[in-house]
C-alpha cells in the first residue's frame, strides 16, 4: 500500500520539456510508409479499371480517351478517398502510389478536391469536356 506512486513521474517531468509537440511550428519527419495523396502515372496503365472497381469509396474514375494509344485520364476525388491504398495493391502495373509527404490536403473550395492525372493534352481535353458536358460522379470509365 504505497502512498504517492506517481511521484517519480512528476519529478522527472519537471526536469523534461513538455511532450506536446507544437504542430504548425514543429514538424516531425513523416514516416516512410505514411499513406498520403494518391499519385498516378499513366505510362504503363492498361485501362483495366481494377482500381476503380476495388476502391471502397468510389474516389477514382478512369476516363479512357483511347485504349490502344493508352491515353487515360484519372479523375481523383480527394474528399472521398480514405487513403487505404487498396488501389495500389490492386493495380498490377504499379501506376498508383500514395505520397508519404503530401498529407495536409485541406482545401478552401469543394472543386479543388478533384485532381485530373494524365498526359497534359489528355487532361486539357477532359477538362474541356467536363466544363461543358460535366460528367456525373460515378466511377465507371467512359
Amino acid at each position, binding site marked *: 500500500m504505497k502512498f504517492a506512486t506517481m511521484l517519480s513521474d512528476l519529478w522527472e517531468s519537471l526536469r523534461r520539456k513538455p511532450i506536446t509537440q507544437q504542430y504548425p511550428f514543429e514538424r516531425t519527419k513523416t514516416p516512410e510508409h505514411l499513406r498520403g495523396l494518391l499519385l498516378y502515372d499513366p505510362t504503363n496503365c492498361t485501362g483495366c479499371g481494377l482500381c476503380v472497381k476495388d476502391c471502397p469509396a468510389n474516389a477514382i474514375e478512369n476516363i479512357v480517351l483511347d485504349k490502344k494509344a493508352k491515353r487515360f485520364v484519372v479523375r481523383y476525388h480527394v474528399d472521398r478517398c480514405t487513403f487505404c491504398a487498396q488501389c495500389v495493391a*490492386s493495380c498490377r502495373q504499379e501506376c498508383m502510389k500514395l505520397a508519404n509527404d503530401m498529407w495536409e490536403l485541406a482545401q478552401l473550395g469543394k472543386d479543388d478536391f478533384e485532381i485530373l492525372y494524365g498526359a497534359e493534352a489528355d487532361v486539357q481535353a477532359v477538362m474541356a469536356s467536363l466544363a461543358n458536358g460535366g460528367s456525373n460522379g460515378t466511377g465507371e470509365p467512359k
Partner: protein
Amino acid sequence: MPTTEPREKFIVPIGPQHPALKEPGHFEFTVDGEIVTGATARLGYVHRGIEKGTEDRSWVQNLYLLERICGICSHSHALAYALGVEKLAGVEAPPRAQAIRVLVAELERIHSHLLWLGVAAHEAGFDTLFMYSWRDRETVMDLLENLTGNRVNYSANVLGGVKFDVSVEQADAIRRGLDFLEERTQHYLTVVTTDSMFLRRTRGIATMSKQQAEALGVIGPTARASDVPRDVRVESPYAAYTTFPVEAVLATAGDLEARFLVRVKELFESYRVIREILDRMPAGDLTARMPRRVKEGETVSRIEAPRGELFYFIKSGGGDRPERVKARTPSMFNFASVLTLAVGHQLADIPMIMAGIDPCFSCNDRLVVVNRIGHEADVWTWEKLRQYGIEYYRR
C-alpha cells in the same frame, strides 16, 4: 414491504446522455421491491447498418467498411473478415503475411489496453495516470504509423496477405519502442497494484466469481480476470499464433483491480510475442493470389480482439458480393452477460455492478426515480441509493 396486493414492476431508468459514457446507451432496471428482476439496455444510438452495407459491396470493398466498425480494434475486424474470406476461397496467406498480421494485431492490443488504462484512470479521477498512459500510447501509435502508414485505421490487410513489409530499420524502431513501453508498463503495474488511493476505487468492486463468469459466458479480459481461461489465441490459434504461441493471462480475484491486472499483464505478453515475431520473421512473399469471386459456402472466423472474442459468420453465394456477413463484437457480448449479472441482486448493488462493467459505461452517479408501493414517486439521488444500500446491509 408486507403489503399483499400484487407488486407492479417499477422501471429505474438510467439515461443515455452522460458525460462519462463514451458510447451512448440507455439502461433500465425493473425492480420488484428490493430485488432487481430485469435489466435491459437500449443501444443503437450509433447503429450504421454495416451488416446490410456489406451485402452490396464487393469482397475487397467490405474489408474497409468492416474496419470502421470500431476505432481501436479495426485491425481485428479486418483480420477476422480476411481470414474468413480466405478460408472460403481456399487461399492460404503466406507465412510472412500471417506473421505481419499478428504483429499488427499485437501492436493494436497494446494500443487498446493503454487507451483503456487511461480512460479507466480518468473515470476514477486519477488524471495524472490518464495523461501519462496516453502519452506513452503515442509511442505505440507512432510505431503503427511508421509500420502501416496510419495511426488508427491501419488497413494493413489485403485479401490474401498484407500490403507492406517490415524492413530492418522498422524492426529496430519497434524493438526500441517496446523497451521504453515495457519499462513504463512495469511502472504502471506497480501503480495499479499498490497506489492506496487508486486501490480504494478498484479493490473488491463488482466482483464476479468464476462460476458466475462461466455461467454468464463472459469473454475476454473480463473473463480472464475471474480465472476463466477464455482466449481464442490459445484455444483455437489463427494466423501465426501456432508458430508464435501465447499464454492466457489469468487473475483470480474477479474484481475491478483484477481486470486492471489482467490487461496490464497482457501488455507484457504482447511485448514478448512481438519480439519473438521480429526475431524469427519467416521469409517469403507478402500476398497470395486471390480470386475475385469466392466459392459458395459458409464459414465462421473467430479471433481475439482486445476486448474479447470477435465472432464473424460469412456466407458466400458464389458471386463477387457476400450474401451475409455477421459480426458479433465482444463488447455486446460482455455487456449483455454482465447486465444479467445484475438480475437477482439487490437494488443497492447496482452502483457497484455498473461501475465495474466497463469504465466507459460506468454511470455510477445518476438520478434514479424509484416509486415503491405506498410511497409516492420520490426522486432518489444516486448518493441516496448508495447510502440506502449501505444501511440496508447494516441492518
